[in-house]
């Protein structure tokens, strides 16, 4: 069986769904971040797949590398926030960080 565009898209969809699920259900801030990474990567797979099957050269790959760099920067900032969160609340549970609500 020849592996085609649909397979990639399905993989990407599954990955996106898992990321979304993790992001919605997890309480741990680190796990939420990991869900976001999954979603980003699902998008990256889409970019590469469309680029390859659409005959657009390496445009998709280049854009993917930019996304990865952004993801790194995002992870750095987000982990900093999480560290601060832990320093203030002594937990990384996002539900506990609700003092702005009151």
């Amino acid at each position, binding site marked *: 069986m020849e592996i085609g565009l649909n397979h990639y898209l399905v993989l990407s969809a599954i990955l996106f769904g898992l990321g979304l699920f993790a992001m*919605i*259900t997890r309480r741990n801030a680190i796990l*939420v971040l990991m869900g976001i990474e999954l979603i980003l990567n699902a998008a990256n797979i889409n970019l590469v797949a469309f680029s390859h099957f659409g005959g657009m050269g390496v445009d998709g790959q280049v854009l993917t590398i930019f996304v990865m760099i952004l993801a790194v920067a995002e992870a750095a900032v987000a982990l900093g926030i999480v560290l601060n969160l832990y320093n203030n609340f002594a937990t990384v549970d*996002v539900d506990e960080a*609700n003092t*702005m609500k009151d």
Partner: protein
Amino acid sequence: MEFALHKLPLVVLLIPMFSFLVLSFFGKKLPRGGDWFGTTLLFINLGFSVFILYSLTQLGKYELNVEWFNLGENKILGLQTFYAGFQIDALTGVMLVVVNAISAFVHLFSVKYMENDTKYTRYFAFLGLFTFSMLGLILGNSIVLMYVFWELVGVSSYLLIGFWYEKPAPQEAAKKAFIVNRVGDAGFLLGILIIFLTIGSFTFNGIFEGVEAGKLSGGMLTAAGILLFCGAVGKSAQFPLHVWLPDAMEGPTPVSALIHAATMVAAGVYLVARVFVMLSADALTVITYIGVITAFISATIAITQNDIKKVLAYSTISQLGYMIMAIGVGAYSFGFFHLVTHAFFKACLFLTAGSVIYGMHHVQDIREMGGLRKKMPITFYTFLMATLAISGVPLTSGFLSKDSILAATLAFGSINGGFNYIVPILAFLIAGMTAFYMFRLLILTFLGEPKNKEKYDHCHESPKQMTIPLMILAALSFFGVFSFNPFDASGGWFLKLVKMPEHLLAGTSGLFYHILPLEEYMEHIHHAHMTAMVLSLVISGLGILTAFTFYYWKKVDVEKLTESIKPLYNFSLNKWYFDELYDIIAIKSTMGLSRMSAWFDGKVVDGAVNGAASVTRSFSKFNGLFDNIVVDGLVNLTGGMVGAFGLIFRKFQTGKIQTYIAFLVFGILVMYFIFRVL
């Protein structure tokens, strides 16, 4: 000489005012309360007035007329300019002398009479004020000026009647005089307004010119004449407003002599004389009959009164009625002549009455007197002279004036005929009654036996300050003062000065009255003269004789006579029940009306107001309820609904980003379902 007419009248006018001001402000600091000051000024004034009268006979009349003020252009009436000034003519000249003479004598008399009064200075100040007002009334050449001074004499009269205001009777009398006079003055004012609206002038000459030009004629002229006469009815105490004058006797007796006998009450007669030439035939009819009715009523009352001053008061009203009647029948000069002669002998009568009251230590009831002739000879002879004059006995001034008036009434009868003969008949009857009641007064007071021995023993003749004015006034009641012919005054200086004027409406007729041209009229009077003289002599002789038979010789039992005509006697004694009648008509009805108004006010007006208030209150209550329930309910409902929705929607607003993402995903799925599947 010129200056006597051009400037002196103003001086004469202002001197009594000066006396009033000085006495009011500095009187108490002057020695003897300043009585000598006022008295001296008045005698100087008398000298000036005599000089003015003399200059008048030499130079003829004079009028000073200056612009007083103007009201600017007016669309309806045009340029309104008011003139003011004074005039010196026969009426004015004579009145000046009369007023000043009597005022001066009354000042002199009062020095002793009022000697121990606590308000001595004020009394003389008021006399000055009165004299000033009276002179102003005489001098003013415009009817408005006359009205102003007219009210001023009213005020002075009020002040002097109520001079002893600590006692209730003078208070009441002063109020009565003032209020009754207001009734007449309201008419006077209306008359002035009619004249102003039709003629547009206030000066007498302007008014006469207007009437001559026919600007005011017919019914309006009659109305104006009668309304002006209303003022005279009030001031000269004519029927039906005569009730104040007898009460005014509550004032000091010299005041009664000055104001309520000689001068102020004559102001009404003066007014009628002043406007005589413009009075229409119908107005003259009214004037004649009012005059004769007044004279008759008060003569009948005077017969039974027992207070010496009351008798004189009613006799004054009677004589004023006579003057009014005389002018009414057209005998302008004779009416005015009687005014002057009456002023002197009535002032004399009142002052002698004052002297008697002074001598008897404030007894006024003639039933307590009698036999005073021996105790007070000077008072008696002066009183006798004045009584002879008022009774119309020959050789007195009263005979001259009364006789000419009687002749005029006879002429009136013969000109107009019919029932108009009632006027001369009543006039002669009144002449007889006058003689009777005056001699009744004389006999009861001075002759016969003293009735109150104790009072009689303490009685004494009055001092010189009082007897001198009496003697002078008695002398002025002598015929020679006015005419050298004791039986006909027409040749005397007085009637030569005060000539009969040609009436502006001569030749016209009213309902029962013909105004004849002067010559024709004088003819009629001339014819009547002899008859009148004989008749009047007989009648006054009869009156005097009856008085002597009744009260001196006592041939008739007076007690029995009054008993037999008791109702008539009481009717007269109670003054025809005029006071009681007015009490019912004017006072009770006014009170009733007031009570009705009070009831209306209390029940209807207040009821309406309170009703409106309670209606408003219940409406407000309803409004409040509506506001509370409906409006507030709506507002609260809105709030509540918003709140309720909030309660629901706040559930979605968790603040958790994960929930939002879940909703987001759910929403996308829904949209996908809607757009793709359906």
